């Protein structure tokens, strides 16, 4: 199994600070938990935490994500941006875009974004992002981005077989995790620097281009509510603009997307 310490990836890493401090663990509850602990201890911007196995890896609202040893990538990034809290939700869309560009560059595969935080390959889930923000009063104290990516898993458990994909299960090829991780960090640091100056608007055209739901009819389920419509736009903060059947436009910032032919969280079939 190829390790992912700084020594292992530095030949591919072009960043100034993101990933220049790495905590690489064999096992952790979740990489976000460790990153949070470090953040509370005052560790600076750009720390990344990687774990080969997560016992409590989590998706949105406590959903579990199991990482197999050496086959996937589970990484958390600690950021301490000096920006308004209201801008922070856009960071999820930003890292989704940076990751798509990076993995496309390495693999050449048509990786897409399922709004706002999943990476899609062959209509199945390749990876997901969970961002957590901690405030101090009304100021951002720190942000932790958790990224989970399926890379060299040969196969998946029966219950997620139809909805999950790895780079290997799609292509039969093995991929070098060091290169993939480094490229994601390289793309993300560049994008993040622009984001802090110009906001997400600088990236919206690319986000639309790689969005698998753009122009499509979808439903968004948020708690007990559901909205149906056609995705007509993604706004400069990453919000989804749906045109409903009565012709009204509705802005969506929360919820899970359901689209025909694309995996969703409510079913284990496409």
């Amino acid at each position, binding site marked *: 199994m190829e390790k992912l310490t700084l020594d292992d990836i530095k030949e591919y890493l072009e960043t100034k600070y993101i990933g220049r401090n790495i905590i690489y663990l064999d096992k952790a509850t979740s990489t976000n938990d460790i990153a949070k602990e470090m953040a509370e201890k005052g560790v600076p911007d750009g720390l990344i935490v990687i774990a080969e196995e997560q016992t409590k890896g989590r998706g949105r609202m*406590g959903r579990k994500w199991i990482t197999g040893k050496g086959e996937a990538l589970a990484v958390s990034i600690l950021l301490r941006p000096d920006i308004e809290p209201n801008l922070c939700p856009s960071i*999820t869309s930003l890292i989704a875009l940076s990751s798509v560009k990076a993995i496309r560059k390495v693999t050449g595969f048509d990786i897409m974004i399922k709004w*706002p935080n999943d990476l899609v390959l062959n209509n199945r889930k390749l990876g997901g992002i*969970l961002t957590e*923000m901690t*405030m101090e*009063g009304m100021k951002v104290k720190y942000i932790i981005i958790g990224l989970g990516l399926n890379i060299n898993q040969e196969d998946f458990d029966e219950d997620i077989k139809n909805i999950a994909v790895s780079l290997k299960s799609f292509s039969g090829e093995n991929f070098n995790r060091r290169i993939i991780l480094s490229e994601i960090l390289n793309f993300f640091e560049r994008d993040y620097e622009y984001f802090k100056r110009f906001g997400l608007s600088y990236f919206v055209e690319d986000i639309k281009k790689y969005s698998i739901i753009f122009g499509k009819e979808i439903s968004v389920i*948020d708690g007990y509510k559901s909205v149906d419509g056609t995705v007509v736009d993604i706004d400069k903060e990453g919000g989804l603009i749906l045109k409903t059947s009565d012709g009204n436009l509705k802005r969506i910032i929360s919820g899970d997307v359901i689209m025909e032919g694309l995996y969703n969280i409510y079913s284990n079939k496409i």
Partner: protein
Amino acid sequence: MEIKDIKEIIKAIDMSSISEFEFQKGDMRILIKKNDEIKNIKFIKEPEVESTVVIEEKAQAKEEIKEEELYFIKSPIVGTFYSSPNPDSKPYVEVGSKVKKGDVLCIVEAMKLMNEITCDVDGEIVKIMADNGSFVEYGQPLFGIRKV
């Protein structure tokens, strides 16, 4: 306005996520508050003839809390308010919960960014001003806390 209209309003507000409703027309003022279980409807000035309407539910049981005494925790982002870490678990806090500085009170989520809202004072939760799953605005008060 008749009693029947007022009842309609109460019903509509009861089923909505609105926690406070105020309406004033002429010499009549209606103030309806939800979460603290006080529903008051009264005329501020006596109407000229007949019906003085005073409907009070559970009002005598609870002392009315003066807003200026409370410390409010506000939402730092626009998003969806979640009272518990996931749909199957208990809320982080309820009315009457004792809280300490640093305790998590709720999550406000937008674009899959989970913002754990923590308490920055010690005290007791007196009011919860958003419903689970409801949309909250930037700066909207979420909790009223009586400091200790």
